[in-house]
């Protein structure tokens, strides 16, 4: 690991100024986990930056090669712990592809609903913590109020509040209760009102716009070069959403929804405000999808019949490889699985969106002020569990 380049400015006999090396993290309130950023500071201006990751490395991928296919599901929950359902979905789809099975219709629709609910929950955290990064503490509590409802909703079918282990190869783990869809629809109505509240509180705040507009600009080319995905890519004006372009679950094809992209409303295209606003609008699109999905959930099996037998013995997919990618709240999550016919895969790799999105940070930070640096880190919305895996 190369050391950060430092330089000395204006050296005289005894009075001189030099660049200050500042460690942002790994224990810092606004690095969203255990990210360490080494900063070279010239006063308030950042002159150099280098990310240091790996503090939360838990060998998730290696574990995947040592446990059975079903057992790895809960591990994927703990990668991007804010969007557990979406992670499970990607893993389950990869395993299903290996097995050559498809989840029944009811399970597909349920997957869409829980994943979109989880996307809202994840974006709510992004919204709330971004407020805290900007010094506004209150939006966080507003966001948590709605997230609490979502967690309670997801707890009913899955039995857990955060790391659901609900979606599994072949379908979903449990069926929903009778009132669940009604309650989800009720939440949608409630959420629309709350969403307007968030916007009056934070989105349209002059100070907030002043802090985020024209900061951390990622151009279209830059976003594509760095392989960014998710809201970070869309905020730069690239209309790319796997749900629309490569529907990994066919119900997405039957739903009507927009793919919000950045427009440079208050500044330049691809600035922090655009990334924030794309996430905010995505929540509304998720609500739209959930509304449509709730009306379309058919009756039937929630798990593939042929799989039920398989659950009793360890899954043994035929030899082969599979790669499935899904649109996570943070971007494109891909799982690459290679089977040789055994109980566990011999290769298991994840393409984590946070990891790829973080790569742009080193290029964005130099030239910004310290406060902007925090705004940029927050706008990338990383989860360190997924970066380090």
């Amino acid at each position, binding site marked *: 690991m190369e050391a950060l380049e430092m330089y000395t400015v204006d050296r005289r006999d005894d009075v001189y100024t030099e660049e200050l090396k500042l460690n942002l993290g790994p224990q810092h309130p606004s690095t969203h986990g255990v990210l360490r950023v080494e900063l070279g500071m010239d006063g308030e201006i950042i002159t150099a930056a280098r990310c240091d990751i790996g503090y939360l490395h838990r060998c998730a991928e290696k574990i995947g090669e040592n446990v059975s296919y079903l057992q790895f599901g809960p591990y994927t929950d703990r990668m991007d712990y804010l969007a557990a359902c979406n992670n499970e979905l990607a893993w389950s789809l990869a395993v299903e592809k290996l097995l050559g099975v498809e989840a029944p219709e009811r399970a597909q629709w349920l997957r869409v609903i829980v994943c979109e609910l989880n996307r809202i929950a994840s974006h709510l955290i992004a919204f709330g913590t971004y407020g805290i990064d900007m*010094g*506004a503490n209150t939006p966080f509590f507003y966001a948590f109020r709605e997230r609490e409802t979502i967690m309670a909703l997801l707890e009913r079918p899955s039995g857990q509040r955060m790391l659901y282990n609900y979606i599994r190869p072949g379908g979903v783990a449990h069926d929903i209760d009778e009132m669940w869809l009604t309650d989800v629809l009720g939440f949608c109505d409630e959420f629309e009102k709350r969403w307007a509240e968030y916007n009056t509180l934070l989105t349209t705040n002059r100070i907030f716009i002043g802090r985020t507009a024209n900061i951390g600009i990622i151009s279209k080319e830059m976003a594509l070069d760095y392989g960014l995905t998710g809201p970070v890519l869309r905020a730069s004006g690239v209309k790319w959403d796997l749900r629309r372009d490569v529907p990994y679950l066919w119900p997405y094809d039957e739903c009507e929804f927009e793919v919000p992209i950045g427009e440079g409303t208050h500044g330049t295209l691809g600035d922090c405000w655009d990334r924030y606003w794309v996430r905010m609008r995505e929540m509304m699109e998720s609500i739209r999808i959930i509304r449509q999905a709730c009306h379309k959930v058919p009756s039937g099996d929630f798990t593939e019949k042929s799989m039920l037998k398989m659950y009793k013995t360890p899954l043994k997919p035929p030899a082969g490889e599979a790669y499935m990618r899904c649109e996570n709240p943070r971007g494109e999550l891909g799982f690459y699985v290679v089977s040789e016919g055994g109980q566990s895969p011999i290769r298991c790799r994840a393409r984590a969106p946070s990891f790829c999105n973080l790569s742009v940070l080193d290029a964005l930070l130099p030239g910004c002020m310290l*406060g902007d640096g925090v705004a940029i880190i927050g706008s990338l919305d990383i989860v360190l569990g997924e970066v380090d895996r």
Partner: protein
Amino acid sequence: MEVLMAQIEALLGTSGALTLTIAYSVCIGSLLGFITVYAMFAIWMERKVAAHMQQRYGPMEVGGWHGWAQSIADALKLLFKEDLIPRDSNKFMFWIAPAVVFCGVFAGFIAIPFAIGVQIVDLDLGLFFIIAIASIEVVGVIMAGWASNSKYSLFGAIREAAQVVSYEVPAAIALLVPILVVGSFRLGDFNAWQEANGWLIFQSPFMPIAALIFFIASLAGAKRAPFDLPEAESELVSGFHTEYSGMRFSFFFLEEYASMFVSSALMATLFFGGFTLPFVDISSAPAPIAMGLGMLILLVKTFFFIFCQMWLRWTLPRLRVDQVMAMGYKYLLPWGFLCVVGAAWFEAKGWGFLA
């Protein structure tokens, strides 16, 4: 003060310098007590205000009714904490910085008129004195940041220096506007003028602007959000007091709330009638009643402005360093000058609404 001295002389039979010493000791002791109790209440209030704005209850357990004893418990905890001084710090400066910070604000209290006769010294230059003595706080903060030998602390200290020095100018300029009308720096005169004529805020159209400028500048002076850059949590962990803990830390805390009180009390005294009420003549009541009522009125007004400060803190995001500077120099200062010139012209023409 004279009343107190007379009473001490009658009670203890002392005279001259000894009486003065005893009288000052009594005053300072009661002020310290007042500030401590006030700060505890204000911290509890801040937590409650924040909680209710955030759909929470805040402290509910300690002491029974709505956790009223939470601040006392916190203060006790801070008192009993181990006294940590970082190994590589400048120990003397680290040790003295909280005291310096607190002294500046504490000294400001002696010139505040709480009610008729409830004022430790009615200085001729009372207003000037408060503004001047409050600046000492900056020195303490810089000392704290420097002595901690921590980069975050240093950042906080430098931000504080830049910010507070910049915002003292618009604050002082804005205060010139009521001074122009009353023609005195003595805070007692402001009360007398407003008792006779009505609240100064209604005197001219420039008054509300001046009041607003002073309010914003005093937010920055007290390091309150959206100007809490010196201790910006999401950027600098805790800013200049990152390395402080226990009682030393609580002094910084005390200072913040004390300076909120001073600026709010000034706001109430200069623009909103001080301890007087419009249409009600409380000074004609018997002395103890007038004193009690006056203090109550001033406290209510002061706490209203303290509440406003809390309200803003829990609503607004934080500004960036350059934005803070730009706001001070590009907006507040020119508007302040405009107000002074406008108010002077207004007064010279004799167009004042009140007198």
